[in-house]
């Protein structure tokens, strides 16, 4: 039962990211989502009494709840950007689209992939919708930083997909992917600093030196 609460938390946090108007609230929602993801993994670890899952949960807590949000908030402070996240679509329309994406994921899961257990199908469709909402944030938010958060949300969704369908990937694969995501975010950050220095803004829709 607790599993469903976490799942709902994760989905609600993605809706709250879609409707967020300011960068700080976007990062806060991302941190909350990662926290729910951590709790879900932690409970799974308790249920299965698996040391490996405890380690994965610990890494999740360290990287996605503590370090990465901290790093992102530092960027917000240092590049002194205006608070807006560059809405391409207004929050209400975005929310409608996000709900629709959730619906599509559910249809896709129930029609196309046949799962043995209902619970599995439910968590698969939830995680798929989180992934798609992440993609939505990447495409329809115009600040470089919000694109990074979109990427992270997609990755959160995929983490959930993996644990939904098969109880997680092999242990060392999870670790490798965590490291990879962390390195990616650091490098994204370096590029955001450079963009800010050269262009004096980090609005991706205004990056148009290159044509055709």
């Amino acid at each position, binding site marked *: 039962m607790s599993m469903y609460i976490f799942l709902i938390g994760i989905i609600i946090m993605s809706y709250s990211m879609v409707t967020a108007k300011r960068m700080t609230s976007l990062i806060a929602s991302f941190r909350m989502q990662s926290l729910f993801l951590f709790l879900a993994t932690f409970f799974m670890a308790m249920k299965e009494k698996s040391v490996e899952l405890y380690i994965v949960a610990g890494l999740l807590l360290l990287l996605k709840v503590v370090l990465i949000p901290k790093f992102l908030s530092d960027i917000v402070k240092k590049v002194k950007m205006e608070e807006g996240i560059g809405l391409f679509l207004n929050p209400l329309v975005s929310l409608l689209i996000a709900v629709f994406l959730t619906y599509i994921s559910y249809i896709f899961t129930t029609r*196309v*992939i046949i799962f043995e257990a209902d619970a599995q199908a439910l968590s698969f469709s939830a995680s798929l919708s989180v*992934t798609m909402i*992440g*993609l939505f944030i*990447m495409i329809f938010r115009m600040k*470089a930083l919000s*694109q990074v958060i979109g*990427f992270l949300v*997609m*990755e959160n969704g*995929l983490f959930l*997909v*993996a644990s939904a*369908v*098969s109880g997680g*990937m*092999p242990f060392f*694969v999870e670790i*490798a*992917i965590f*490291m*990879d995501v962390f*390195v*990616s975010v650091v*490098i*994204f950050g370096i*590029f955001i600093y*450079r*963009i800010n220095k*050269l*262009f004096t803004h980090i609005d*991706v829709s205004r*990056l*148009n*030196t*290159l044509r*055709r």
Partner: protein
Amino acid sequence: MNILFILITPFILAVLPGVVKKSKTLGILNAIGYLFVLLCSLWLILKPGLSVSPFKLFYIDELSVFFIFTISIVTFAAALFSIDYIERDIDSLLISRNKARAYYTFFNIFSLSMFFVPMVKNLALVWVAIEMTTLASAFLVGFYNTKASIEAAWKYIMVCSVGIIFALFGTIVFYYASSSVGVKNLNWADMVSVSRGMDKNLVKIAFLFILVGYGTKAGLAPMHTWLPDAHSQAISPISALLSGVLLKTAIYVILRFTIITNECAGGDFSSKLFIIFALISLGVSAGFIIIQKQMKRLLAYSSIEHVGVIFLGFGFGGAIGLYGALFHVLNHAITKSLMFFGAANIIKKYKKDNMNIIKGVISSMPFTGAMFILGMFALTGMPPFSIFFSELLILMAGLGSGLYLASGLYLFFIALIFGGILFHFSKVLFGSKPDGMEDAKEGVSVKVVFVFLFILMAVLGLVMPGFLNKIIVSSVAILEGA
């Protein structure tokens, strides 16, 4: 053992800039290192009975060896070309000496991650290696720190990261499919052995995500949007690496998944997808080549074309099509590197990249000009160069399997691109050189690079060395699921 040498050499070279301060020495050591890597990979080909590796992490069969060989040729050429290129950049104050050292570090991390891809056994670690290639090369794309190059790097890193997320999704679904028939480790060989038992629909969905995801990295249209920017803005030796081999590593991964998919769901599904994406790539690249103004961008679009040709070969299938496609992987890597090096010399000399302004390359830089014109004919598929033969094989495969429409479109686009490239490059090559421009003198190392690539390009068009033939034939057998 030589697998280890191939991996350790770039690793040592990557930390070397911390010790060696002089950039020219670094460049020379770098080139020597990659010559050693090339010899190691040659030995890997020649040594019979290689498939067992002493380490659990690796899985090396003929298909991997073929890609390792291709990567080692281009990395060697790029390392050799870098020596002179970087020195000239330092002399013209484009980059500082410290930055030159950083260049060699990133060059080696980038190569290391590319060598990793065809060696790793676990498909999720392959994914990690592919993401590492993106991250390492992003710094080299944004190397000059100009507005254009940083924009290109950002676009590159973002588009490819989305692609790679799709690929991870595909990998997870493959994992689910294989774990439901008992294989829970993501090792390629184990997954192939149970592929017949996997759920067909699941595998098809997963493969679609794999193709779109890694296809983004491979430069298939319509996911190619990052490619022209990144390839044209990257520092030129790196453009050759990006175009020549980075795209091929992504193709390699797609092939690994294709083998599983074909075993499970039959070859028809992947073939159709390959042909569709290949024809879109050919069409898109033909259009953009014709209206192109910048030389490096034109070469970037030509890479999309050749990736299309390669996928068309895999799509047409049959022993001939697969052989042609693999051969084309090697040929394109060689020829495109030569063209990027030529373009690099020309752009350095004229200090601009616009093909409407550059004129008289043949008379102002006879050596580069001659190589460029030969490379141009090779790239557009003229005999007796190697690309002609691989493209011919692919055409034969298409006609042989009765796909007349696809073969016809293939010929049509190739002809269009031939015309476009000839039109643009002849403007650049011929005509009188600008007043007061001195004749160029290329350094010895630069000339060696061109001659090395030219010989490969010409010899492979005339004779097929036995060892290469053998490795390609074995790779074809692996692709056919033998």
